[in-house]
Structures are given as structure tokens and as C-alpha cells.
């Protein structure tokens, strides 16, 4: 009886710790979803009446609930420059708080926020801001119904995705970062797929000493820290290859580097090296899973090995290729550390893709969603704006990576069913 009891206790411990794991995952994604989307929801404008009779109008940016003890931080109208009008009000000084329905919140192109009241508040505010800049959003958040709030939410989301940033990447959209991430990943896929597939085919066919060496190298490569790839990328690709290309072809522009500085191409090469093991392993697994009867059948009908490969094995392994590609893309999209060494920047002057020949500019520095997260959270001049921005970018990045991974998981399951059908 006692043994049963101890067994039950042990089982409950194991189950409870798994429960902690499951709970942590649910909590993590729930938090990310809410923190990533919260910046787009229109926040109310509050009028805080102080004991000395004055009134502060603005948006509450930090309070007891967010860890600021005994005080409120309020963003009031930023008439001069962004980040200049935060006020800290002690809780004991507050007489009353209200959300007046006639309050208006204005967002200017340069990121400044203005708050006012009354039906003609906008003109007065815009005149007071004394700026030729345009307002991009004028809302009366306190008077909005749920539907109107949703409309503001989606407008902000669309602006976030489709416009360039302003004010040294503190406000505005993340289009260049999104484009930079996508271009980088695309270029990386173009490099890694041929090499990865070729290596997998080689490993699938050969069993000799050389194949064993390659296999060991690939396995060990999977465990190498990503920052070491960054070091290799900087030393070997940027300084070595890039410096060499500059000395050969762009000698007239030296010492200003063309390829000898960090850039899209070198970042893509570095990531290709980083994701190679993922591709090789999943393609090889896909090839190994194809029943050998298929290949033997085609060889018996007179096909050469290479005909069997192109007409039979690779098409049958197509889902595995796709899975490898998706996993590699997901891994590459999440890798930030190596990029910090090979050309990611806070604010790139030009996009890596544009309408000017040759359309793709592999030597340009680029922006990246992951780096924007790091930069906005820890290195921005205005942390109150930086942190929500970092979470918005994090939500976007996790969304992209999740969609890719879920696709890979679904593909894998379909693939498994297909081979089960082949075998029977």
C-alpha cells in the first residue's frame, strides 16, 4: 500500500512539473499576444486633477499596475519635441481622475503626441505645436465605441506594417525592418537549399570515410553557438571576402568599403552556414524514409541512379525539402546575435530592395525585426515608447516564425501519412 502511495506522489510531482511547463508556454504566448497588440489599441486620455488645483491632461504610461510605486507617469502634449513632456505625479497629490469625452489625441508625423479638449481642440493644438508637420491621426479615444476603437486598432496595425519608421526608429512603421528580414531570409534560402540538398544526397548515397567526416561535421555544426557564426561571418566573409572584392574591383572607392563592410550578402551567407544542418538533416531523413522498394523498382526498370533521383526520390521527398526549408527559415528569422556582427543596423538609409537597377543591393546594410526589438527595448532614448514598440515587433516576429513552424509541423504530419500509405 505504501509503495502505491509513494508511486502516486512521484507521479503527481512529474505531472505537476509538466503542468508548470504547459502553463509557462500558455502564459508566454498569451502575454506576447496581449503585449504585442496592446500598443495599437487606443488608450484613453485622462484628465488628472491635482490637489493644488491644476489639471494634467494626457495618457497614463506607467502606474502602480506596471510597477511604478506610489505615482503616475503621464505623457502630456509634446509641443517641442518627442519625449519631452512626461510628468510624474505622486498618488497623494491626485484629487480626482476622469476621462472626459471631449478629449482629443493627435499623433504627428514626427511621432509627437498632443492632447487637448473641446470641439475645436485640434486647430488650437496644431497651432500651439507651431510645426509645419502633418497630423497622421486625430482621435477622441474616450468617446469611441468598441467598433470605432477596433477601426483605430486596425488602422494603426496597417500603418505599423506598411510605413517606414520616424524619429530614429522610435515611432512609425517597421516596413524596412520587415522587408530586411524577408529579403535576408529569402537570400539565405537561395544559398542554403542547393548546398543542403546536395550534401543530403551525398550523405544518402555514400557510406565511406568522407561521408562519415561530413556527417560528424554537420552534427557538430548544429551545436555551435550562433554568435560564433557571427564572428566567422565578420572575419571571413566581411573582412576576408568583402575586403578582397573591394581591393580588386572597388579600389578607387577605398577606404570607404563597398563589400568590405557588413551587408545583406554576408549576413545571408552567415545564416546559410547557420541553417545548413537543419536542411541537411531533414532532407536526408526525408530521403531515408522513402521505401527502398521504390528506388529498387526504378533501377530494375533500367533507370540510372541519377534518373531515379530526379524523377522519383526528390519528388517523393518534396515535403521533406519544404519542411527543411521552413525550419531553416524559422531558425534564420529568429537569429539575431550573428547579424549584429555582419551588417544589421538601427536605421538603414536605403532599403536592400528598390526600383533602381540591379534592384537587389547585396552590399547594403539592412534593418531587421529582431534587432529592432533589442534596440527599441534597451538602447532607445525614450523607454516609454521603446518598450511597447519592442513588444509590437516581438509579436510580429513570433507570429511570422509561428506560422512557418506550424506549416512545417502540418507538412511533416501529411508526409508521414503519405509514406504510411506507400508502405502498405
Amino acid at each position, binding site marked *: 500500500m505504501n*509503495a502505491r502511495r*509513494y*508511486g*502516486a*506522489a*512521484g*507521479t*503527481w510531482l*512529474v*505531472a*505537476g*512539473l*509538466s*503542468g508548470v511547463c*504547459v*502553463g*509557462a*508556454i500558455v502564459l*508566454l504566448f498569451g502575454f*506576447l499576444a496581449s*503585449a504585442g497588440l496592446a500598443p495599437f489599441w487606443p488608450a484613453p486620455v485622462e484628465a488628472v486633477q491635482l490637489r493644488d488645483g491644476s489639471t494634467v491632461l494626457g495618457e497614463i504610461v506607467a502606474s502602480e499596475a506596471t*510597477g511604478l510605486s506610489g505615482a503616475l507617469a503621464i505623457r502630456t502634449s509634446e509641443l517641442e519635441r518627442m519625449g519631452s513632456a512626461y510628468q510624474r505625479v505622486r498618488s497623494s497629490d491626485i484629487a480626482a481622475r476622469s476621462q472626459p469625452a471631449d478629449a482629443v489625441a493627435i499623433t504627428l508625423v514626427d511621432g509627437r503626441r498632443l492632447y487637448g479638449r473641446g470641439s475645436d481642440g485640434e486647430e488650437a493644438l496644431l497651432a500651439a505645436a507651431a510645426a509645419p508637420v502633418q497630423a497622421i491621426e486625430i482621435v477622441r479615444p474616450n468617446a469611441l465605441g468598441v467598433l470605432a476603437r477596433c477601426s483605430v486598432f486596425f488602422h494603426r496595425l496597417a500603418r505599423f506594417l506598411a510605413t517606414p519608421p520616424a524619429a530614429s526608429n522610435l515611432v512609425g512603421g517597421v516596413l524596412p525592418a520587415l522587408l530586411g528580414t524577408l529579403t535576408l531570409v529569402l537570400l539565405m534560402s537561395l544559398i542554403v537549399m542547393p*548546398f543542403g540538398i*546536395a550534401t543530403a544526397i*551525398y550523405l544518402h*548515397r555514400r557510406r565511406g570515410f568522407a561521408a562519415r567526416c*561530413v556527417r560528424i*561535421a*554537420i*552534427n557538430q555544426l548544429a*551545436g*555551435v*553557438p*550562433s*554568435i*560564433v*557564426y*557571427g*564572428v566567422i561571418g565578420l572575419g571571413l566573409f566581411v573582412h576576408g571576402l568583402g575586403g578582397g572584392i573591394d581591393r580588386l574591383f572597388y579600389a578607387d572607392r577605398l577606404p570607404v568599403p563597398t563589400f568590405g563592410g*557588413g551587408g545583406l550578402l554576408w549576413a545571408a551567407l552567415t545564416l546559410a552556414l547557420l541553417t*545548413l544542418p537543419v536542411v541537411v538533416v531533414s532532407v536526408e531523413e526525408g530521403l531515408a524514409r522513402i521505401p527502398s522498394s521504390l528506388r529498387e523498382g526504378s533501377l530494375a526498370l533500367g533507370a540510372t541512379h*541519377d*534518373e531515379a*533521383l530526379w524523377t522519383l526520390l526528390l519528388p517523393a521527398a518534396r515535403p521533406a525539402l519544404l519542411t527543411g526549408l521552413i525550419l531553416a527559415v524559422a531558425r534564420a*528569422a*529568429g537569429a*539575431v546575435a550573428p547579424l549584429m*556582427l555582419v551588417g544589421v543596423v538601427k536605421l538603414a538609409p536605403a532599403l536592400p530592395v528598390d526600383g533602381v537597377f540591379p534592384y537587389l543591393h547585396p552590399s547594403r546594410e539592412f534593418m531587421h525585426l*529582431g*534587432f529592432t*526589438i*533589442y534596440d527599441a*527595448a534597451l538602447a532607445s532614448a525614450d523607454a516609454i515608447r521603446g518598450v511597447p514598440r519592442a513588444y509590437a515587433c*516581438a509579436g510580429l*516576429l513570433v507570429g511570422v*516564425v*509561428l506560422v*512557418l*513552424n506550424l506549416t512545417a*509541423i502540418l507538412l511533416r504530419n501529411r508526409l508521414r501519412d503519405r509514406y504510411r500509405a506507400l508502405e502498405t
Partner: protein
Amino acid sequence: MPGNPATYASVLSADFVRASARARRRRERVISAVVGICTAVVLLGLLAIPLFLLVGLHPGTPLSADTWRRFEVLLAGTLRAGVCGILVALPLGIATAMFSAHFCAPRLRTWIKPALEILEAVPTVVLGLIAAVTIAPWLRNHVASVLALIVIVPLVLLSAGMAFGTRVRNEGWLPLWLLPLLIATTALVVAVAARQAEPAIVPASPWNAALVGLALGVAGIPIVFSLSEDALFLVPRAHTDAAFALGATRWQALTTVLLPAAGSGLVAAGLLGFSRCLGETMIVLMASGNTPIGGFDPLGGLRSISADLALGMPEASPESDTWRGLLLAALLLLLLTLCVSALADAVRERLHRRLRAAAHAA
């Protein structure tokens, strides 16, 4: 036979067959060559990693004593972060693997496994962001409650299992049933701690090794989980069935058959998780404060080799002493992680050998 016999004769002539066979053979050779060349390029790229670090180090003056002292601090920081990380990842990862492999209801399993795979896909920069910005200020005031939770939660689970465990017939969905208990315990402990005016333990810095360990642990859970689960599944079904036939409970089958058989696999999983924690960059960079402090204080700040590389490398000019110091640091990190993962491979090889021997005996 329909058609013109003359055409058949020309198509089937020996010359044609020979020519087509030659073309096919040539194509076959070209493709093999392309595959070989690509593989050679890949191998070259892989070998370039250690070679480049070694060659880059070679020339120049020896490094100063200061640089070496700095390495000691960085190495200590890396190990401290890695140990904290694996202390979080190991119990959670292995427990989840044990549950998923041995107790879990099949329907729950189809959810747990993808959930952990998805957790693995979360970019570490996101975990670093959450740790540095959201958890750090909270943890500063709640170190004592977290410590209390680490002790209390297992005790609560064990005693609840002692009291009610024998009445539960089906353990398959237990983690979900236990979630309310876990949440209630956490809420209770935090509420009790919040009644105190001053937090009982205040860390030296809000960005410290414990915080880094928490985030690294979450990042490391999936790898520990998937490797340990694989190891547990490698144990032949017949072994556990035999244990059940002899009257063992599920728990007894786990502790007397599964764990001894798969033990080296679990050790390997822990080692690989540790190796991953050692090399992780973004979490440490964001949540550790990056202050080069030595020692073993889990509540003190630290600076790891990887974070040092990420911060120092872009500014260092090639061929300078700083540059060579950083290359040496990168080599050190590479060797450290490779050694740990090679050790893991050796341990895992032992598991496979033993299981193969068991299969032969059976």
C-alpha cells in the same frame, strides 16, 4: 506490326542505344560531380570555422595578463549563466518528457509535443526582451517568493499525491487537472510575500544570473524535452510490458525499468541543453546587465563570452589586440560547447550500445 519497319530499325539500332547510354552516363557523372563539389564546399565552410579562429590568433604579440584575467571573469559568467539555465531546464524538461513518454493520454500528447516544438521556435531575442523588461523589475521584489515556490510547489505536489493520488485511476490528463492547484499555490505564496513591506532578499542587480537562468531555462526546455523523450522511447516496449506483467505500477515501471535503461540518454539531454545554454547570446546580452563580475553569486550581474563577442566585435578593428582577444574568446566558447556536446554524444552512444545489446539478448 504497324508503322514503317525502317524507322524501328533506326531507333533500335545499336548506335542509338549506345549513344543514349553514353549521354545518360555522362549526365550521371556530371550530377555526381556537382553533388560532390557542393558537399566539398560545405565541408570547407564547416572546417573554416575552427581554422579561421586558429589562424586569426596566430601572429602578433602574446596577450597581456589583463586579457587573461578578463577571460576568467567572462568564463565564470558564462558557466554561471549556463548552470542557472540548466537548473531550470533540466527538471522541467525531463519531467515533461517522462510524463509525455510514459503517463500521457495520447490525445494530450498530440498537443504537448507541438507546444514544446513551438516554444523552441520562439526567437531568443523575444525571451530576452520579456526577461529584461518585464520580469526583471518583478523579480527584484520577489526573489524570496520564487525561492519559496521552488521548495513549496514540489512539496505540495508530493503531499497532494500522497493524499489523493491513489484515488485517481487515470493519470493521462493530470497536468491539466493540477494547473489550478499550481496557480493557487503560486498566488498564495506571492500574496503572502506581498504583505511584507520590504522584500526579504534584494538582488545586487535587477539583471542577474537568476533572471538569465530563468529565461535560458525556458529556452532550453524544448531541447532537453525532445532528447529525453527520444531516449525514453528507445527503450523497447517489451521491457515495460514485462514490468507491468510482473505487477509493477506505472511509477514502478518508470523508476525500475525505463529510467535505468534510458538514464544515459537523459544525461546526454542535460549535457546538450547545457551546451546550448552556454552559447546562447541574445538572452544573456539583454538580461544579464553585461557587467564583468566574477564569483558565483546567482543574484549578481554577469557578462558572458557570447555577449562580450556581440558587444565588442563590431567595434574592434581587425588585427588589433582587442580583435585577437575576441577571437580567442570565440575559440574558447566553441571548444567549450563542442566538448560538452561531444561528451553528450559519447554518453548517448553508450545508451544505443546498451539497448542494442539488450535487443540481441532478447
